[in-house]
């Protein structure tokens, strides 16, 4: 049973058209992460939530926003996608205690036309 679910699996949007990616979890973890991964590169942390506390990485563009309305759900909003935003977007969760590992979803592959 999938524990971190990302929808949709593939998303196509147009240049400049806002898009939202979603992530849900059944693990009741208090930390949720969004990573961007481009081809042949490592996942790059965009931001994470510890409960409702939002932590943005310094180099995450303002074009990227996130919402976490409750423990189970987290959204990634890209306000005006550019061609350079085409990537795999990975959601991960973790219980914010000692030694806990990350659980990843299958990712959403975003294409920008």
């Amino acid at each position, binding site marked *: 049973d999938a524990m971190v679910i990302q929808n949709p699996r593939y998303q196509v949007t147009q240049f400049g058209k806002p898009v939202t990616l979603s992530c849900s979890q059944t693990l009741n973890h208090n930390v949720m992460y969004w990573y961007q991964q481009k081809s042949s*590169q490592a996942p790059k942390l965009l931001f994470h939530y510890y409960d409702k506390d939002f932590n943005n*990485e310094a180099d995450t563009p303002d074009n990227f926003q996130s919402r976490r309305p409750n423990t189970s759900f987290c959204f990634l909003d890209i306000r005006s996608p550019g061609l350079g935003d085409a990537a795999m977007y990975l959601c991960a969760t973790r219980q914010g205690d000692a*030694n806990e*590992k990350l659980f990843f979803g*299958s990712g959403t592959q975003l294409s920008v036309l």
Partner: protein
Amino acid sequence: LAKTTQPISMDSYEGQEVNITCSHNNIATNDYITWYQQFPSQGPRFIIQGYKTKVTNEVASLFIPADRKSSTLSLPRVSLSDTAVYYCLVDYPLGNDKIIFGKGTRLHILP
């Protein structure tokens, strides 16, 4: 956050034991060492975690010397399905919740 260095890529053959070494010279006292595996078009998945000496599970072993400045992931008798990217992370779970991935090692298993 301790930085990690791994070989960019490795090739091996089916049935061989594969050892991937990760260097983390400035590891802090409370940091743990965690390895993840990633197949194409999938999210990374946890393989193994350790603090010191040796850890073994059904998938791999992790060897950590006394100075903890490096670690070695050992995959016994690899198969074609072990072809993936392997990431070594150094993390202090009770501190900052940022988890940063290094470049990883692209392992290619040949028949």
